């Protein structure tokens, strides 16, 4: 069993399992606590009271309708991309490509938004736009998937490199063919406001993309655990050779997992463009694709876990602004906390084992006394 574990990537090993989910949850919670604790030390080194700083951060993230809406807005694309990534991770594919897929999805949907003739009713156009966003990301995910399935080329390396390709394609388009006429900035023309995703809380920016993302969380669960194809994807993730023996077409399953994964990232990009910025510009993806990796990891590829993790991450980032203003701690501190978090989450087994042993020793001592 040692050998099979070594062959599997970190993501495959970290999958939530049925029987031990309770200890795993404990491990994750300890990891979060430790990260916050160490983060607190860093904050006090930076010269502030950590409790006060965390208090401000919390209020900055959840303290008002507006704060809450900003947190949820920030969580939306990350949630969607993380759900998508979870499909790859469950299939034992270590994809780092969500960032690039978000960008490509943003580009294809924006192109659709600009080019679709206006005589088509807006609602139909919105559906088409979503479709094209999904399709763009999916196709961009299929490339590494196909290379993996056909020639066993590392999907990790291909996805990392394809992120750079996507970033540069975007930059080229915005400085060339897609550049807004007469604009000084490298950005596309503004999209028809009939196509903007509606905001559902007045005076905030929170758009209906949140519900779309939540719908995909449910779809993900259903797909993975209640459809035969999800069963097969999970089987391939755990043991491709056994899956092949059971009649699963392993190559097809790999390509499909990467396609769905990319498609959801592409949709996340679509929502950023049509829900928030209403045009395409250089930094619209803002690292969401990388956050999504961390969120999927933290949420243990479990639908509920991912929802919680995405909100937690967004809260850290949104709240950090308030923290900086109130107690003069630089916002970058939250990146330290995020980094620590990932580190501890990867150590969760060690952590929960240590706790178990400590409690065992404690009980023994009590019995001895």
């Amino acid at each position, binding site marked *: 069993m040692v050998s099979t574990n070594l062959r599997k990537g970190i993501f495959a090993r970290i999958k939530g399992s049925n029987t031990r989910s309770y200890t795993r949850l404990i491990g994750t919670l300890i990891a979060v606590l430790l990260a916050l604790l160490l983060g607190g030390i860093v904050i006090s080194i930076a010269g502030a009271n950590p409790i006060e700083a965390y208090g401000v951060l919390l209020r900055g993230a959840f303290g008002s309708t507006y704060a809450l809406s900003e947190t949820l807005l920030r969580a939306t694309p990350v949630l969607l991309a993380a759900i998508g990534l979870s499909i790859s991770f469950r299939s034992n594919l270590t994809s780092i490509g969500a960032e690039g897929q978000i960008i490509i999805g943003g580009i294809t949907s924006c192109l659709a938004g600009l080019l679709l003739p206006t005589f088509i009713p807006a609602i139909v156009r919105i559906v088409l736009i979503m479709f094209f966003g999904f399709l763009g990301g999916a196709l961009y995910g299929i490339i590494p998937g196909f290379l993996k399935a056909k020639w066993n080329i590392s999907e990790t390396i291909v996805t990392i490199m394809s992120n750079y390709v996507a970033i540069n394609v975007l930059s080229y388009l915005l400085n060339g063919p897609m550049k807004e006429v007469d604009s000084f900035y490298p950005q596309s023309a503004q999209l028809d406001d009939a196509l903007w995703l509606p905001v559902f809380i007045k005076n905030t920016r929170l758009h209906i993309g949140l519900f779309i993302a939540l719908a995909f969380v449910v779809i993900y669960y259903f797909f993975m655990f209640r459809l035969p194809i999800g069963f097969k994807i999970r089987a391939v993730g755990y043991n491709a050779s056994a899956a092949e023996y059971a*009649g699963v077409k392993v190559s097809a399953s790999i390509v499909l997992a990467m396609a769905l994964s990319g498609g959801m990232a592409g949709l996340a990009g679509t929502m950023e463009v049509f829900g928030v910025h209403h045009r395409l510009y250089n930094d619209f993806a803002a690292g969401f694709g990388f956050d999504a990796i961390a969120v999927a990891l933290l949420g243990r590829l479990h639908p509920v876990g991912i929802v919680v993790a995405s909100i937690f991450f967004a809260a850290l980032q949104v709240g950090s602004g308030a923290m900086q203003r109130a107690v003069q701690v630089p916002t970058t501190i939250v990146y330290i906390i995020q980094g620590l978090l990932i580190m501890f989450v990867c150590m969760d087994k060690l952590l929960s084992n240590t706790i178990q042993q400590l409690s065992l020793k404690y009980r023994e001592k009590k019995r001895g006394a």
Partner: protein
Amino acid sequence: MDVDNSMNDVPVIDMRHITKRFGTFEANSDISLDVYCGEIHALLGENGAGKSTLMNVLYGLYKPDEGEIYLHGNKISFSSPADAINNRIGMIHQHFMLIPTLTVVENIILMSKTTSKFHLNLKTECDRLTEIIQKYGFKIDLMATVSDLSVGEQQKVEILKMLYRDAEVLIMDEPTAVLSPNEVEELFIILREIVDDGCAVIFISHKLWEVMRISDRATILRDGKKVTTVNTADCSKEDLANMMVGREITLHYEKPEIEIGEPMLQLENVCLNSDDGISVLKNINLTVRQGEILGVAGVDGNGQQELADVIHGMRKVSSGTVKVAGSDTTNCSPQTAIDCGLAHIPEDRHKRGSILEFTVAENIAMINVDKAPFTHKGIYYPQNAQKVAHRLKEEFNIRCNSVNAEMNTLSGGNQQKVILAREIYRNPKLLIAAQPSRGLDIGATESIQQLLIDKRTEGMAILLISSDLDEVLAISDRVIVLYEGEIQGEFIPGEKTFTEIGLMMTGSSSEERNSTRHGVH
């Protein structure tokens, strides 16, 4: 090293009142075991009796909930296998723990103390290893990659690893399950030498004649409790079996004569070349009909697995045709073969046969998951899988806490039963059973062999691949012998002596060779 071969007063290992629980389930309750230097101590018990668990406790993989362990009279408490290794205890697991992509020498020095702490010189380590190899007369290439080795050779690597670490206590969990009779003999010679050097060996096996042959004493477990410890010399095989299962085991089968029917498997001139061009199957011709068991005898690694793979569609033939239940399935996908009515109990239950992280129910549903009863109108119903699994658990006497337990948590023999149950209950037209009773206790072996005969009587066609000659001869209607990918001849059990068969298995009977030219039908 202690050269005194007589049993000292102080046992090297003394486990006292060990209890180990998983949740509320007691896998070991109040077990005591003492082992002396210079002895081979057998550990016996049915599947799930708690043998592996007890040894994992000794090896530091599990912490006992109650009880103490003494090493040379000193109380010890291991928190990991590294502690055990440092105290000269080595364990060879039921399922090997080698890293397939590394070479033999790399695997051996991993986790061992090397000559120098800071500088790794593979050559000095190789020299040290060569010494051990020569001393015990191993035949092994230190620079070979582990994935290229046969199971017998991998076993030797494991033993070598222990010797290299200078282990004084060797725990071997079912070491012979995967070995051919010759390899077992070799292993026994090595084990004797090791204990004569003053070491102790704890030996787990389900094969009673081996226990009788090799062990000095035996401890018998049943349902997690110790039954007794006996001197092997004072017992018969029947006594041991009785103590293990509490009833008599006959290993004698009812096998009614029946009419054989339509051919369910036909191979014609099948050849297969490996990726590097070596011919692994040479011109195989065989037919299995309804109502018969065709046994494939031979030493492991002579093309048996490739033969099964070709029929299952996992490998493409170089030439020839394969027909399953009358339809041509040559180079079709595994799913096509399954759809034609094939079931396959694969030889490697971890690599192929099951998904360890899946639950028992999911492992049952793994094949044909998209068909009834698991899937209705495109939706998978886990509860249906659980229902089927529950039925099979009763029917096949699978011991697990629940059908939602991960496959990981089952004992080796019970994992095997899950696979057997899944493949047989589908009532396939053609069943490939490769090493079906590997890892099963004698009771389970008896019932599975009887079940195979019953299925054959009901009209199933069965291709039985086994390196256990007794098994092949006991239940097959016809037997072929495979050597280096070639059929060495065919006979009916009882027609040939063991010696003759042994010769065929090593490819040294030239007369048989001529007859295969014309194929076997």
